[in-house]
């Protein structure tokens, strides 16, 4: 995602003189069009076929193993806007909070390493590998042991899992920072802080966006684990109860809810932000599609 967001601007396609193209070019373009159609057909056709196969198998299989897609869709609707909605949006709120917190902590650590180079090794080579390698399950269990069942434990676990993502992304962004612009900044001031605020932070924005996008998706994976163990609410709890009740349709529905939310937020929020950033900075930022 980082590369997507930071590609250099592409030259505008030259639309003029399309009729005058030699046959080779025209053939190549037709080939390109054919490939596009094939790619679209594959991307949409195969999932549709899989869906049909699922429906077909579900007609004869035990609902405990493969539930009917219609039932799953009904449950999904329940979880999004019906009875179960409070569970879904509880998880959502926890994840958004955790993403924000992890961004703050990641940014603070990176800023600290910049402003106080003496902490560089501590942060990059001790703290980062440490939090990066502790398994989510470990934090989840410890979260419950330390903080009991509830919001705090879940946010604690998710935030800790997400910090490495923001830290690594911002760190990489910092390595890729335009040296010329930094030197320009330094030629105007000796205030490290002003260069950071006016020059470096805006340059890091695409990396921050990439980190947030990634964090949000990973956040759902981790939040459900955390809620599975240590929560009185949320989709993880729904999952746990469904497991105990052998309610496979709900397990399927929970998965579907997460997919729908992650994709929707990616398209409606992150893609739009990326586009806006691109317009503002004059770079082409390809979107997820």
């Amino acid at each position, binding site marked *: 995602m980082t590369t997507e967001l930071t590609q250099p601007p592409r030259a505008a396609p030259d639309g003029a003189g399309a009729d005058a193209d030699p046959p080779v070019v025209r053939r190549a373009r037709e080939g390109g069009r054919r490939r596009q159609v094939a790619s679209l057909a594959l991307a949409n056709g195969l999932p549709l076929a899989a869906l049909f196969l699922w429906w077909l198998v579900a007609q004869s299989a035990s609902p405990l193993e493969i539930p009917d897609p219609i039932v799953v869709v009904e449950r999904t609707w329940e979880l999004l806007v019906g009875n179960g909605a409070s569970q879904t949006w509880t998880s959502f709120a926890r994840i958004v909070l955790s993403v924000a917190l992890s961004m703050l902590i990641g940014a603070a650590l990176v800023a600290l390493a910049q402003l106080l180079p003496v902490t560089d090794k501590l942060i990059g080579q001790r703290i980062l590998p440490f939090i990066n390698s502790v398994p989510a399950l470990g934090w989840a269990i410890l979260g419950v042991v330390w903080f009991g069942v509830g919001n705090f434990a879940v946010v604690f676990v998710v935030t800790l899992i997400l910090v490495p993502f923001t830290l690594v992304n911002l760190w990489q962004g910092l390595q890729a920072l335009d040296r*010329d*612009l930094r030197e*320009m900044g330094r030629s105007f001031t000796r205030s490290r802080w002003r260069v950071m605020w006016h020059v470096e932070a805006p340059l890091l924005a695409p990396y921050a966006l990439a980190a947030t996008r990634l964090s949000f998706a990973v956040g759902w994976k981790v939040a459900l684990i955390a809620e599975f163990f240590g929560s009185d609410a949320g989709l993880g709890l729904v999952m746990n109860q469904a497991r105990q009740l052998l309610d496979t349709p709900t397990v399927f529905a929970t998965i579907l809810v997460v997919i729908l939310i992650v994709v929707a937020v990616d398209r409606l929020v992150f893609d739009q932000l990326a586009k806006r950033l691109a317009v*503002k900075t*004059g770079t082409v930022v390809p979107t997820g599609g």
Partner: protein
Amino acid sequence: MERAIDIADLRFAPGGDVILDGVDLRVDQGELVCLLGPSGAGKSTTLRMLGGLMQGTGDLRIYGSPPSVGWQRLAYVFQSPRLVRWRSAVDNVALGIQLREGRGSKGVKRERALACLERVGIPELADRPAHLLSGGEQQRVAIARALALKPDVLLMDEPFSALDVRTRNELRHELVQWWQDAGLTIVFVTHDIDEALVLGTRAVVLSRKPTRVVADVEVDLPHPRDRDGAAWESRRQQVLAAFGSVGVETEHDDDVVVR
């Protein structure tokens, strides 16, 4: 005349590779001195050291102070404009003021920035995003950004070398006017002999690395300069002879440049 810049025995040898081998340079208030030398001669390095952006050994003075104090009287214009993409022309100029002065009314800074854009002749482009400006326009913004600080000394590192011939000639001409109007001191790095002789009150000829000053040619001709005159030609021959004496080749491009 007050001494603006005093460089004595400047040396720079990163990893044993001697680049600056005892460079001496004195620039008085109000001069426009061109540092002329082949690429790799450490011209840009010398400019950077003046502002404390790099460290070397030797004695550097800006109005009698070391770079750690004197940097506030300097402003840089680099070879590439180094504008930030996410700001408009006027906001790029204001960025320079923000960086140097910190807090303060944004409106006032913008006013000052606008006045500087007017000075460099592009007030109508104030609100255009930096990345939609032409190369020449961007460099004008970069010059406005430097002038906005009201520096005593302007340090320019081949600022016109990436521009097309016409724009380059225009900007050279205007630079002389800005310099005269503002009573600035300018140190201008170039590898273009004609550029140095069109602009400079002095052309300081540098050798290939390990670099030292080979000649200091006074160009006491009024601006704008007639490139065909005999006086011009004699200065030019002096510079060419100086380069010839240390085996630096020159070639004819749009101008005569050193390689």
